[in-house]
């Protein structure tokens, strides 16, 4: 009887062992899956942001204020961010020439940006201008290939923002494709009551996208509308910290490169 009972209990214990083994296996699988998920490709899932980061380098002017800025900027395909989609139409990466008005979050800029093509296939580029008062305003964008033919990977072009002579708080944007056809007008933005500040170059990206580019032949415009080469360049503001750590690298008084894990942070 005891034997039978014991065998019976024994069988139940064996069933229990099997159940416990299965539970352990399940737990281990869940744990391992969680670790793999956490450290692996799924790490940036729910809760991840699509934050834009930027590197801002400023031109030295010998103490004078700038009313316009002009940068010759390279363009490469550097889009690698899954948070950018045709639907959200966010920019993945880009570069600008800009005038910063001295108050953080107050600026006007013109340049290029990379984004997800509306077809859902491939990477697209467009010219844009942006204004901000109080940290945000709006972007004007154009993907018109006929009008702005040089916004393509492997090219460089001169981007500028210029305060108008007759209406100081209005800024015109231009793109010079360096194809002998001169400045191509982008648009005009109202920045009232701001009209003077500091000439800058900016590189921006989101998360996994890159922004290795060159800003050269940096120039700023004085109050008499004369252009001057930058006397020096320096890091003004940099939100790209580890693990991305994009910085500017001074190459000359009129050139800085946007590089990763090198250059000067600030």
């Amino acid at each position, binding site marked *: 009887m005891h034997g039978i009972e014991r065998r019976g209990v024994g069988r139940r214990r064996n069933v229990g062992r099997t159940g416990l083994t299965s539970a352990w296996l399940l737990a281990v699988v869940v744990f391992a899956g969680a670790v793999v*998920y*956490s450290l692996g490709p799924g790490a940036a899932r729910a809760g991840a942001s699509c934050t834009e980061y930027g590197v801002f380098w400023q031109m030295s002017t010998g103490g004078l204020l700038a009313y316009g800025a002009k940068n010759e900027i390279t363009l490469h395909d550097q889009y690698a961010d899954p948070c950018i989609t045709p639907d959200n139409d966010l920019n993945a990466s880009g570069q600008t020439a800009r005038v910063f008005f001295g108050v953080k979050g107050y600026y006007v800029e013109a340049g290029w940006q990379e984004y997800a093509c509306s077809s859902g296939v491939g990477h697209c580029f467009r010219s844009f201008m942006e*204004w901000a008062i109080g940290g945000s305003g709006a972007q004007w964008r154009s993907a018109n290939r006929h009008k702005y033919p040089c916004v393509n990977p492997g090219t460089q072009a001169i981007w500028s923002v210029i305060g108008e002579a007759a209406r100081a708080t209005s800024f015109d944007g231009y793109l010079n494709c360096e194809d002998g056809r001169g400045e191509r007008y982008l648009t005009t933005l109202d920045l009232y009551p701001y009209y003077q500040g500091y000439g800058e170059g900016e590189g921006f990206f989101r998360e996994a996208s890159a922004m290795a580019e060159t800003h050269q032949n940096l120039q700023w415009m004085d109050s008499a509308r004369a252009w001057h080469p930058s006397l020096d360049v320096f890091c003004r503001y940099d*939100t790209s910290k580890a693990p991305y750590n994009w910085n500017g690298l001074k190459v000359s008084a009129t050139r800085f490169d946007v590089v990763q894990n090198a250059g000067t942070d600030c």
Partner: protein
Amino acid sequence: MRLPDYIIGFGRRHVFSSVLACTVVVAGTAVVLARPAHRSSAPTTRPAATAAEESNSAEHVDFDQPLLAGRKLPSVAEAAANLPFRPVAPAAAGQPISVWIPAQARQHLLALVYQHPSYGRFMVIEVPNVGTQQDLEGLVAQCATGCEEAWSLVHLEDGSEAVLFEGSPTIPHETTGVIWIHNGLALNVLGPAASFSRDAALALANRFNSANAA
């Protein structure tokens, strides 16, 4: 009735093992929840952000140190001595917690940062007016096709027209504020949209608009 030892032993091991298994599962879940958000770039596993959730700028307003290389001064009176205009700083708004002018003396600009018991943190920027009422209204006109914040024309209590911009409280770094022209100055009161309302912005704009220059 006392249960046989092997049954008691089995029960203890069962409970112990079950607790351990649950602990492993809970730990695994915790690892997932605590994982760094930026580790990966796998294109197919990450949900897309919507444009409405993300700021389109890497540079934001700083309500602690608002200016690039700004000079922090001890008082509005001290700022007045360094500016070509008389600052507006009504007593009704309280005392600013910091007073800033640009390090570069050629730029004529004043930033007053406040921490108000009712309105919280806000800032007022004052510059000489170089434009027209039409230029001011142009800010709203260029938002006809869409801006990150909602821009509109409003009237202050004295009937003057001002521009109101209202940020979303849920989008990081957006601001709410008012811009208007007052006695040869262009004034801009603003605060973080998360804590500074349209009503607060308008109430303060009216206080500054009705104040005399210092």
